[in-house]
């Protein structure tokens, strides 16, 4: 088989050579035979004639030779393609409409598919990435679904879970890198020694981390990414190994360089440091101090399954419960460790949106296909006579079928090519919708896979489009077709029904898209109208990184804070300035436990996780957070280390439903401690949306003085009198004045942060709106085409009726009634589809029911308006048919 294909390919490749060689071979045969005959005494002229005669028909032999090489079908294909191209060129209006439709709809599909391909379908860029898993601790009853993993988890599980061949712990972080005077903030990852072997990609030169380097003090080693090496070291690989790099003011030894393109998930880390810890951090007491910053990944052993790993971890957790001092509390909190495939977990949040968008694009393509099928049906009707004649002259059914398929496929392939161009443009435009911020979003690219999908899609579409047409062409008896055409009679009833069914389908599908868009738009509107709990206008924020070397102890950090607050507060145009460790909507959604003194857990209730903030200066005034009771925390509280705190309304309502929050006492962490450790509640403030505007969970929040809530993160929040952006430079200058080595990053207005946080709602709503607009346009074209054709077909009938005295109004109404019937059928089907879609979209909706009557009514209205508009023109044309002209033409 393979040999035959190769031989066929060779023949196709050098078709001209093949033909030439064949002629030459056959001719020389005849000549040689003729020579032999001459030698035997036959006169030369006679010899040539006899040679030719005995050889038989040269053309026939050549055909047989071509057939022996399987060239026949290809010759036929080329012929049919030429024929199809000629036919398409003859009707430019139809061809251009069809090509544009295909280009837009295939382009939309390819664009979305490119995203799905790189985000959902392609494995992560590690060898055998399907075996990579992640796991996290979950305390659902404490309101903490996901809490990372602890150092203890790592040391307990390492080499003790047989399903894993390798297990590794990592956390993200930041350092100030470089020599004094030329420092910059760098994202880093701290990783356990197995990290690179778990992923399957390690340093190309040098080595990975060793076990010794996981002890604090012995961890001054660093592995560079290729990018960092290129940007910061102007010398060869091996000369860099062993060099010192100053991080947070401390010299680190470079021990390895990672291969180009190495990137772990969305991490922007350029430097990898060992994950070091102290022995006390590895004990059972710390088993549950995960926090979202520390994460575990593992590689499944060949043959091991996810559920085996899950079972083994569960068993180990049960076993460890015996030594766990907090076992009872954790069991109450519903503690469990969940193992998930790394890739699926990484893309889980965007998966539904992407699938929804692809479904939307596919519906759009379906509308386009139905549209084209209808236009093609109208077109084929005009050619049924031609087909009938050819069938009568001996064209086989197979030939008619293959010709139809070739014609539609030529069309869809051309459309697919244009669609590829549109898709390439679409992929570029995707950044507008924030696609590059998706997991693996930077990998989205136009490539061969996409071209292949476009090609296959176009071929499938071409064949699908050909089927109804071929069916009609073959089902009509040639004799009938010739006669009916000759009499100029009406088209077959079935064909008309099919056309109408197509219009109904189009209307229904557009309806589904419209209502889906409506639901998303309404969700966006609701999300936008949610109060974030702070006044976002006139607020500028920036992240400050204090180098660990200079600011190792808390007093020095607090001194810096005080200086900073004073310096910025002095600037003109600043009305309030505060500091916080955890900015709302910044993506940091970690929760930590707080224990209210005297709160007795009800059966089944557990200690809860809350958002915890450390604030300094006039944070609440700067953010514009409302005070409900008592007072705000002040810079003074932080300075003096007052053990006071402020809670939000959700927190107050949960623990003190009777409204006596002020004066109550609570502890940081889980479990009560000595009274000296307690914080007194001095105020209650309004709720703030920390994770997202659409996050409805009443998580509760506690604000501590910054000095008592130790954290590496520091954001400055400035309320401006005029535009906040104008303060950006002021902010940087102020920080530089205090310490030129301290960088300020991510300077953004709070409005921008709010805006960005809505991207997950806005982008799908915008994209589906675009899809809907195209769908409406296509549907109106389709309706117009079919109605217009119906009018044209019945010209004669209408003319006669008008001649007999029918009112033009009546004629118009008749066609409008037909249109209305189609619209109503379509809308009815559409409502059913919209109901299904709404159910499927449930997880993406915000404060909108899956079936929303106003949205349905709006969609129906939109649909009816556009479709009726499309019907108006043909109906009026029908009413204007002149009886005299018609009768004359019927003559």
């Amino acid at each position, binding site marked *: 088989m393979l*040999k035959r294909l190769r031989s*066929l390919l060779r023949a196709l490749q050098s078709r001209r050579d093949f033909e030439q060689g064949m002629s*030459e071979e*056959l001719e*020389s045969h005849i000549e040689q035979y003729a020579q032999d005959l001459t030698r035997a005494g036959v006169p030369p002229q006679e010899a040539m004639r006899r040679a030719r005669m005995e*050889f*038989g028909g040269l053309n026939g*032999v050549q055909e047989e*030779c071509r057939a022996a090489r399987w060239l026949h079908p290809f010759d036929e294909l080329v012929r049919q393609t030429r024929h199809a191209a000629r036919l398409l060129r003859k009707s430019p209006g139809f061809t251009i409409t069809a090509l544009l439709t295909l280009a837009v709809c295939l382009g939309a599909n390819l664009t979305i598919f490119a995203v799905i391909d790189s985000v959902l379908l392609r494995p992560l860029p590690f060898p055998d990435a399907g075996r990579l898993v992640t796991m996290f601790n979950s305390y659902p009853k404490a309101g903490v679904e996901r809490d990372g993993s602890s150092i203890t988890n790592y040391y307990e599980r390492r080499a003790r879970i047989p399903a894993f061949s390798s297990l590794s712990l990592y956390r993200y972080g930041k350092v100030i890198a470089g020599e004094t005077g030329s420092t910059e903030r760098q994202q880093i990852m701290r990783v356990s020694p197995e990290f690179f072997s778990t992923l399957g990609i390690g340093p190309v030169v040098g080595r990975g981390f060793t076990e010794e380097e996981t002890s604090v003090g012995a961890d001054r080693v660093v592995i560079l990414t290729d990018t960092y090496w290129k940007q910061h070291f102007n010398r060869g690989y091996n000369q860099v190994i062993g060099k010192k790099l100053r991080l947070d003011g401390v010299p680190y030894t470079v021990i390895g360089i990672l291969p180009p393109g190495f990137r772990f998930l969305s991490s922007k880390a350029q430097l990898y440091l060992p994950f070091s810890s102290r022995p006390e951090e590895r004990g059972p007491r710390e088993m549950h101090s995960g926090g979202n910053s520390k994460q575990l990944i593992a590689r499944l052993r060949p043959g091991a399954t996810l559920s085996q790993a899950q079972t083994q971890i569960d068993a180990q957790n049960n076993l460890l419960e015996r030594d766990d001092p907090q076992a009872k509390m954790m069991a109450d909190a519903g503690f469990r460790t969940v193992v998930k495939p790394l890739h699926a977990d990484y893309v889980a949040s965007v998966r539904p949106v992407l699938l929804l968008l692809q479904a939307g694009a596919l519906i759009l393509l379906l509308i386009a296909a139905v549209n084209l099928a209808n236009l093609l049906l109208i077109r084929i009707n005009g050619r049924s006579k031609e087909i009938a004649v050819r069938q009568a002259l001996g064209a086989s059914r197979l030939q008619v079928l293959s010709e139809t398929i070739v014609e539609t496929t030529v069309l869809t392939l051309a459309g697919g090519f244009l669609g590829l161009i549109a898709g390439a443009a679409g992929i570029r435009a995707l950044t507008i919708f924030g696609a590059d911020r998706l997991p693996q979003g930077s990998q989205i690219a136009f490539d061969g896979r996409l071209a292949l999908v476009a090609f296959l899609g176009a071929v499938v579409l071409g064949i699908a489009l050909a089927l109804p047409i071929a069916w009609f062409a073959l089902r009509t008896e040639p004799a009938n077709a010739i006669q009916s055409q000759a009499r100029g009679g009406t088209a077959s009833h079935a064909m008309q029904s099919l056309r109408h069914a197509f219009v109904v389908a189009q209307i229904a599908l557009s309806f589904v898209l419209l209502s889906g868009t409506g639901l998303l738009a309404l969700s966006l509107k609701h999300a936008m109208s949610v109060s974030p709990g702070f006044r976002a206008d006139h607020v500028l924020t920036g992240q400050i990184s204090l180098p660990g070397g200079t600011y190792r102890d808390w007093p020095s950090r607090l001194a810096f804070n005080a200086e900073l607050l004073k310096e910025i507060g002095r600037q003109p145009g600043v009305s309030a300035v505060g500091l916080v460790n955890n900015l709302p909507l910044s993506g940091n959604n970690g929760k930590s436990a707080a224990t209210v003194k005297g709160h007795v857990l009800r059966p089944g209730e557990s200690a809860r996780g809350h958002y915890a903030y450390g604030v300094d200066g006039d944070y609440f005034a700067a953010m514009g957070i409302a005070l409900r009771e008592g007072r705000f925390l002040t810079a003074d509280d932080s300075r003096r280390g007052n053990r006071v705190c402020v809670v939000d309304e959700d927190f107050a309502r949960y623990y003190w439903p009777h409204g006596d929050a002020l004066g109550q006492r609570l502890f940081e962490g889980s479990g009560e401690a000595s009274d000296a450790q307690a914080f007194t509640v001095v105020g209650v403030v309004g709720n703030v949306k920390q994770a997202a505007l659409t996050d409805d969970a009443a998580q509760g929040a506690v604000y501590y003085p910054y000095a008592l809530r130790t954290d590496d993160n520091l954001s400055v929040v400035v309320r401006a009198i005029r535009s906040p952006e104008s303060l950006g430079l002021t902010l940087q200058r102020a920080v530089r004045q205090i310490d030129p080595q301290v960088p300020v990053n991510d300077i953004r207005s709070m409005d921008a942060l709010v805006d960005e946080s809505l991207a997950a709602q806005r982008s799908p709503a915008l994209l589906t709106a675009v899809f809907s607009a195209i769908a409406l346009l296509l549907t109106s074209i389709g309706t117009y085409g079919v109605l217009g054709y119906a009018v044209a077909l019945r010209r004669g009938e209408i003319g006669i009726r008008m001649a007999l005295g029918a009112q033009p109004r009546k004629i118009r109404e008749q066609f409008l009634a037909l249109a209305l019937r189609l619209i109503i059928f379509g809308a009815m089907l559409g409502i059913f589809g919209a109901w299904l879609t709404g159910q499927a979209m449930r997880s993406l909706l915000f404060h909108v029911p899956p079936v929303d009557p106003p949205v349905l009514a709006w969609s129906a209205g939109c649909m009816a308006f556009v479709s009726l508009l499309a019907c108006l023109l043909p109906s009026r044309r029908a009413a204007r048919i002149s009886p005299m002209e018609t009768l004359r033409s019927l003559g």
Partner: protein
Amino acid sequence: MNKNADLLPGTLDMLILKAVSLKPLHGYGVLLRIRQISGEALEIPQGSLYPALYRLEHQGLIAGEWGQSENNRRAKYYTLTATGRRRLREETAGWNRLAAAIASALNTTPEEI
């Protein structure tokens, strides 16, 4: 009776393979060679020779290559490939079995039943 025997269906391919196995040949040469080795008994219809050659080449049993003919003209020479050689062996064996069986059947006398 005609001294030329009619070609049995299916035997043309076998004969071509055999002819080509002896020495690389061009199309006309194949014709002459078959006539020669069959003791002038087998005449191949000229029109069906080339489709058969092309088919065998397509199947990879023979390989065609352009070369110089004895009277200095460009000609396509066919040689037997390894697959072709195996096929020829099989067909020869098959043919011999068949011929022996038929001969034995035809030579049967009433006494032998």
